[in-house]
């Protein structure tokens, strides 16, 4: 570990929490025993192959399945019209109508008359095998009459733009403003000594978890039940939405997420294939399954980002920012998926970054295009906001004539200002941003790096050095239900947990969180074990199956520990409360005179009079001698609704070397100092930072969902879409600073998205820093060798 600030010292615990603990999840995953969705096989199953539109926008004149039906194993070819009776009016759900007048076109699982993006499902093949389904889908002939497509979001709002949805009369879905005091913002800009005005493009990203999606829907013919297995982050939400969409009674639906091979937000959705397979399974009375291919995933699974950002800062002559003004254009794609419209708004409260800025103006206009829908992707709105403000702060530093670290220091929210009410209306929980930045500067050896940079510049080297800062704060731990209500979100933000003590004093924890790589089984067992004074290996953690864990709101938005973990923590407290009553009864003592030490209740100061936890567990089970009126068994359930978001923060510093002959960028050092509050398992925290940073750096340097002008996607597989390998990945140096969150009893915040939020601007600020002496002030993402070389060549007066 490279922690410079031992997280264990911040927890009131002599136990496991705060110390690295190897994961219990690993052995099954390491030996091939873990079952992912495509590993399943059900008797009598039929395979679905999906025919996807090859046109970005076209009228579907006809579907000809005759050639497909000639293929051995292909049993049926169904057009959207053939399938329409299976779902009737039921369209795919959007749970976040952010404004009352938001335009939300009906979104059928399979299009009936018009295909609206490349990849839009237009017909379905049923077959007896995986290969026959693929062969059949390839053999279906669809007659398209192409319509004009709108691909670019700025073009989509121009006069006379083709319309994605003709009946709406516009490509705009909604406009959402957050401008608490417009006059004050105008005044701040009128009086500013320095105004920075920038336009940034957030390219679309393909989430690309290593496991593509997959669905197996199994009907109970006699019972009318449906078991839906899906590679999903959200079995609980999917159950509700499947019931609502298909009219299947909710209590007849069981949703199971088996081992899930990563999600990063793209499995936080209700997809056409889940509804399609469920509807077909119930209709035909046989298991129906579909496994996504990687090429299919490029268009059938949501994409992330897709924004054009205009950000302005108004600062006084010391560089103290007085106001921030943002206008955002956000790409929804062709339809609104589960939380598509809400994603830009999750960043909409954070365009002032971690700075004490008095006045705020944010307005987002979201538009339809003939492309795959966007939705949540690691960070969801917050990486975009952080990118804009962190890039703009570097521009301000240049305007004021100070270093990037100095402009940040002059503007940070002070450590003594918490709880801090932001200009966007949030209450930030805790932090010490300056200390975090100082630690990062020290770890990076900034003076030495800057000396090397100066030497390379003086030498006219073709290997120029750049240093990039990114200081971030994010809102996570989604979320207080009442706040979600004020944002028009269609559900709450609580989480549920049950802690059940078995007769032999082993413990079952049932969590509503749905891990897909985060190691909740290990971390939750540490929480419970420490409170009960038992071994974590004696605590089993069950999840991801609504028959076992009926209540929950699942895993996304860095919410699992701060909301779901807190529910586990509180349920364990309730178990202890009941255990204390049993112990008091057995010891014939007043419960207030008892203390719980090393897994036993004892009368304070009298260790000889003690009842071990195991004895209480067995007594609760036999119920032979419980206090009058007490129910047998030792079990507690808690549903926890957080009073506030949590606000992880940090400073990351990227050092890059730019080859000015080729435009190649190499990250030569990467320092991350994060404050995610108290840490339960620092090993897992560090792993989340590593992976998050690479995902953020990948947006900066490698990844881009490329579309042609007529809406064809170019980057359909992992040969074209550059998910970085170990050869591109930098080494990370990670440390933490802990300011416990006062919002929850463990003082935790969240770390799942922080690395991704921080890394993108750190890397691009570093690239721009390397090239600034050439007069370069911006480099588009991804900063590929070609893009960087062109920027250099243009700056030197060459042709681009």
């Amino acid at each position, binding site marked *: 570990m490279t922690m410079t600030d031992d997280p264990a010292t911040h927890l009131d615990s002599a136990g496991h929490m705060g110390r690295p603990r190897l994961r219990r999840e690993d052995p099954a995953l390491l030996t091939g025993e873990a079952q992912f969705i495509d590993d399943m096989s059900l008797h009598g199953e039929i395979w679905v192959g999906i025919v996807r539109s090859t046109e970005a926008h076209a009228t579907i004149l006809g579907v000809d399945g005759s050639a497909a039906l000639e293929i051995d194993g292909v049993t049926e070819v169904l057009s959207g019209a053939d399938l329409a009776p299976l779902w009737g009016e039921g369209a795919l759900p959007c749970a976040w109508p952010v404004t009352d007048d938001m335009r939300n076109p009906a979104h059928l699982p399979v299009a009936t008359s018009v295909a609206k993006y490349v990849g839009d499902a237009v017909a379905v093949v049923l077959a007896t095998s995986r290969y026959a389904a693929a062969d059949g889908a390839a053999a279906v002939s669809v007659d398209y009459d192409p319509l004009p497509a709108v691909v670019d979001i700025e073009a989509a709002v121009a006069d006379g733009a083709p319309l994605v949805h003709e009946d709406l009369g516009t490509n705009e879905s909604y406009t959402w403003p957050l401008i608490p005091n417009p006059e004050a913002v105008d005044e701040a800009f009128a009086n500013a000594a320095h105004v920075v005005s920038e336009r940034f493009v957030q390219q679309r990203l393909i989430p690309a978890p290593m496991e593509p999606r997959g669905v197996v829907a199994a009907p109970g013919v006699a019972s009318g039940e449906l078991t839906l297995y899906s590679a999903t982050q959200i079995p609980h939400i999917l159950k509700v939405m499947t019931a609502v969409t298909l009219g299947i009674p909710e209590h007849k639906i069981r949703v199971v997420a088996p081992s899930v091979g990563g999600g990063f937000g793209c499995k936080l959705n209700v997809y056409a294939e889940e509804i399609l397979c469920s509807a077909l399974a119930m209709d035909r009375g046989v298991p129906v399954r579909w496994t996504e291919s990687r090429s299919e995933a490029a268009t059938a699974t949501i994409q992330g980002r897709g924004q054009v950002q205009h950000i302005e800062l108004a600062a006084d002559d010391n560089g103290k920012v007085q106001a921030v003004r943002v206008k955002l254009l956000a790409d929804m794609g062709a339809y609104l998926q589960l939380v598509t419209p809400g994603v830009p708004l999750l960043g909409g409260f954070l365009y002032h970054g971690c700075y004490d800025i008095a006045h705020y103006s944010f307005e987002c206009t979201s538009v339809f295009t003939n492309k795959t829908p966007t939705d949540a992707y690691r960070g969801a709105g917050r990486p975009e906001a952080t990118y804009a403000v962190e890039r703009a702060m570097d521009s301000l530093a240049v305007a004021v004539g100070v270093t990037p670290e100095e402009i940040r220091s002059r503007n940070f929210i002070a450590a003594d200002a918490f709880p801090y009410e932001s200009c966007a209306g949030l209450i930030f929980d805790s932090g010490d941003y300056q200390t975090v930045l100082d630690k990062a500067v020290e770890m990076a050896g900034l003076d030495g790096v800057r000396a090397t940079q100066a030497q390379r510049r003086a030498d006219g080297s073709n290997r120029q050095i750049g240093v990039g800062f990114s200081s971030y704060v994010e809102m996570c731990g989604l979320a207080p239900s009442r706040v979600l209500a004020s944002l028009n979100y269609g559900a709450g933000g609580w989480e549920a947990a049950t802690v059940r003590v078995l007769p032999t004093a082993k413990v079952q924890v049932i969590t509503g969180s749905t891990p897909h*790589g985060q190691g909740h089984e290990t971390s939750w067992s540490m929480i419970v074990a420490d409170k009960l004074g038992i071994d974590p290996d004696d605590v089993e953690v069950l999840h991801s199956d609504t028959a076992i864990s009926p209540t929950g709101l699942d895993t996304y938005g860095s919410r699992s520990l701060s909301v779901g973990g807190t529910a586990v923590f509180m349920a364990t407290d309730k178990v202890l409360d009941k255990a204390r009553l049993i112990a008091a009864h057995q010891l014939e003592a007043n419960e207030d005179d008892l203390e719980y030490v090393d897994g036993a209740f004892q009368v304070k100061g009298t260790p000889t009079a003690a009842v071990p936890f195991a004895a209480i567990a067995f007594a609760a089970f036999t119920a032979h001698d419980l206090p009058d009126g007490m129910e047998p068994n030792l079990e507690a359930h808690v549903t926890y609704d957080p009073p506030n978001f949590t606000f992880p923060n940090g400073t990351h510093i990227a050092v890059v070397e730019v080859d000015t002959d080729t435009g190649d960028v190499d990250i030569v050092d990467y320092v991350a100092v994060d404050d995610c509050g108290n840490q339960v398992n620092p090993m897992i925290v560090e792993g989340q930072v590593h992976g998050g940073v690479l995902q953020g750096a990948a947006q900066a340097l490698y990844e881009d969902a490329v579309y042609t002008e007529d809406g064809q996607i170019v980057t359909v597989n992992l040969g074209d879409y550059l998910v970085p390998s170990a050869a591109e990945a930098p080494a990370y140096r990670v440390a933490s600073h802990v300011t416990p969150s006062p919002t929850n009893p463990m003082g935790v915040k969240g770390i799942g998205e922080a690395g991704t939020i921080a890394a993108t601007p750190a890397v691009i600020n570093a690239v721009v820093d390397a090239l600034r002496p050439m007069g370069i002030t911006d480099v588009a993402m991804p900063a590929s060798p070609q893009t960087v070389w062109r920027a250099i060549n243009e700056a030197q007066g060459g042709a681009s």
Partner: protein
Amino acid sequence: MESITLAVNGTERNLEVEPRTLLVHALRDDLRLTGTNIGCDSSSCGACTVLINGQSAKSCTMFAVQADGADITTIEGVADSDGTMHPMQQAFHEHHALQCGYCTPGMVMAAISLVEEYPDLDDQGVRHGLEGNLCRCTGYQNIVNAVLAVAGSGSKGSES
């Protein structure tokens, strides 16, 4: 259909496959060895890596009939029969070199082969040696550390 014989994890298996059946599908669907995963359709990700006659290979990139007569080791075949994990599996566990675990079987197989072939690996050697195996969760640093630990320990194990 073609009849082929594969020696999989030390056991001879006879099976009937279409000439176009990919090896990975023969392993997963016909032999029900589902530890070997599929992450792409362009031989880019390496999730399907197995050992064929001791050499790592992407099992989505060859037909099952091409492997007729070959010795194949999958992730199910690298631990000891008593369940003790292979040193590479153990190193991945101890270095937190996996999160969701989907790329892991392929990554472990590629790493076993890499360490066998290049005993004197350094950081860059591991990074370039595993360039054909993608991981979306870990950022690779802990994977590199796990592989280096096995390379440095001399406890590589022999699987072919």
